[in-house]
């Protein structure tokens, strides 16, 4: 997932969590606040009542006509005030919720009760406010608070998104540049237009490192060229000299066999140098992948080229190739060498009257080519090292240098071909190539 998406998701998620918490917590808080507010107002009213009683005397409420109690409530029974004379000596001073019956209707009130003494008598003052009214107020408050909060959350999510997009633009640019580069040698360093020092550092570091890789590649290329020249030139001189001696009528016949032996040894040296150079050159990306190679067709071509050798060894070579697959961006001659080496190995390490099958079929991702032989097999503990340089498993003629499978593996890697081996000692070996189209 991209960083920008992650940041946006995180910002949205955290804000939704805050919103949820508020939605859950808000009613309780607002109710509490509303109740406290109501209590405050009741206390204020109590104060005013005492003031009125002090100024006008209790007689203005309790007279002979009214008896020993006074009561008043407004039209919708939202509030009431009552004052009565009580006989008990209990002192009350509280604010509580309580149910009161007003005109045959039970209403839940918030009631402030307070006793006071005046003129040797004890009175109880009660001021009530209906809870429905209090809750109504609190609901209004909640509604507006929620709308406001939601608006704030939405606004911050969008500003976060926009800002992170702008902020991360240099990073997006770096990633895009890197995606376009298939190989370090194709990289061109570019400056980044940003004030974020982290991104500048990142870009400069990538530029510098790519530069170092390119330099190393170039140096390696020169080195390979020099090694190639310095090693192959003397080999070349020796080979032509030996060939001239071989052709010289003055060379005694007894010396001819020795010359042939020398040529063989020289050939071995040449082959090792050339194999190592081939592997290095492929790894140094000196080969082009600019051909379209028809894989089943190539497999048939290799089989035909090598059929003679199989027949000489009395080994039957079958091809079982179905479907069609063309590998774009490939190198025909390298792929030929790769398959040739594997089939050649299958011949070399086969049993008399053995067989080799080159199987090919399309797969979901591309194409699979398998070279199965009925040969001597490879012990399991050696399977992991067969592609390593100079690992010789069995060299019947003692002249194999063990670079054949290294070449195979290197060419497979170069083309992004997955290569696997299965083997049962005494029964045979299968080399499997999974071709898939490079993006």
């Amino acid at each position: 997932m991209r960083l920008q998406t992650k940041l946006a998701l995180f910002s949205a998620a955290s804000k939704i969590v805050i919103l949820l918490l508020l939605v859950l917590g808000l009613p309780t808080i607002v109710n509490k606040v509303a109740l406290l507010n109501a209590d405050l107002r009741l206390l204020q009213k109590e104060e005013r009542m005492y003031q009125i009683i002090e100024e006008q005397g209790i007689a203005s409420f309790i007279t002979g006509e009214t008896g020993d109690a006074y009561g008043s409530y407004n039209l919708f029974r939202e509030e009431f005030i009552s004052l009565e004379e009580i006989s008990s000596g209990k002192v009350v001073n509280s604010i509580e919720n309580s149910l009161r019956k007003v005109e045959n209707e039970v209403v839940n009130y918030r009631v402030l009760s307070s006793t006071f003494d005046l003129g040797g008598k004890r009175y109880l003052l009660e001021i009530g406010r209906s809870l429905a009214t209090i809750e109504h107020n609190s609901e209004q408050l909640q509604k507006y608070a929620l709308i406001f909060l939601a608006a704030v959350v939405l606004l911050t999510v969008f500003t976060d998104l926009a800002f992170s997009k702008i902020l991360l633009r240099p990073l997006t640019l770096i990633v895009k540049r890197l995606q376009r580069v298939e190989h370090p040698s194709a990289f061109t360093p570019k400056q980044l237009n940003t004030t974020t020092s982290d991104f500048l550092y990142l870009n400069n570091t990538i530029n510098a490192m790519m530069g170092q890789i390119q330099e190393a590649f170039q140096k390696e290329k020169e080195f390979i060229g020099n090694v190639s020249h310095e090693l192959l030139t003397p080999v070349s001189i020796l080979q032509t000299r030996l060939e001239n001696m071989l052709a010289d009528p003055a060379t005694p016949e007894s010396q001819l066999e020795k010359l042939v032996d020398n040529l063989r040894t020289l050939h071995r040296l040449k082959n090792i140098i050339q194999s190592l150079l081939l592997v290095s050159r492929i790894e140094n990306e000196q080969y082009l992948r600019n051909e379209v190679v028809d894989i089943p067709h190539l497999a048939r071509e290799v089989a035909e080229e090598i059929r003679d050798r199989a027949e000489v060894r009395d080994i039957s070579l079958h091809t079982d190739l179905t479907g069609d697959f063309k590998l774009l961006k490939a190198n025909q001659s390298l792929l030929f060498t790769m398959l040739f080496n594997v089939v050649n190995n299958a011949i070399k390490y086969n049993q008399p009257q053995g067989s080799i099958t080159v199987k090919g079929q399309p797969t979901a991702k591309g194409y699979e080519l398998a070279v199965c032989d009925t040969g001597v097999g490879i012990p399991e503990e050696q399977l992991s090292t067969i592609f390593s340089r100079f690992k010789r498993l069995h060299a019947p003629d003692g002249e194999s240098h063990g670079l054949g499978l290294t070449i195979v593996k290197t060419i497979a890697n170069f083309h992004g071909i997955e290569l696997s081996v299965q083997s049962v000692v005494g029964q045979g070996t299968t080399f499997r190539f999974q071709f898939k189209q490079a993006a």
Partner: protein
Amino acid sequence: MHILIVEDEAGLANELSYFLSQEHYKCDWASNGREASEKIAVNLYDFILLDLGLPDYEGLDLLKETRALDHDPAVIILTARGSLEDRIHGLGLGADDYLPKPFSLLELQARMQAVLRRKFKLKSSVAAFHGFELDSSARRVSHQGREITLTKKEFDILHYLLLHKNRILTRLQLTEHIWGNVLEDDYDSNYIDVHIKNLRKKLSAYAPTDWLETVRGVGYRLTV
């Protein structure tokens, strides 16, 4: 046939020169680019064997110079650097062939003959020997008009032996010629023996093949 060998390694130039003189070519040697450039301008060469890795001169520049000449000599590039770009450049600039070092002298000679055949449009590609005829361009072998079916490898071996008639060819030289395009782990001379055996069997149905000699412990020779 007048040949210029452009090669900074005296050892190799000597061997090349010796071999080609034996084959009745007239050889000149230039050990550096300046010398080569002068020689090319003064003499009319038919063939130039050009080493690209010269100390004082860009080999490919020399190639351009030869291409500018009126008489258009054939050019084969010989190089031990063998980078892919060299090859593409060389052939793109009009070299007639490209042979990476180390090469067999026999292979060089075969390539030179092929180039000359192509370049000077030699008509006859048919060689006759002991009653057999080999047509190298049609890739056919016949005996008194009756065609003999050979495999690709058998034909290549016979052709190579004929090209270097009266000369001993080792199994290795034959192997390198017919399998030269693949780099293998090792080589097995047994394959050549089997091909020769089959070749003898096929040809002897028409006439004796005692001209195809086995030189014990060395190789094979086609005597004419």
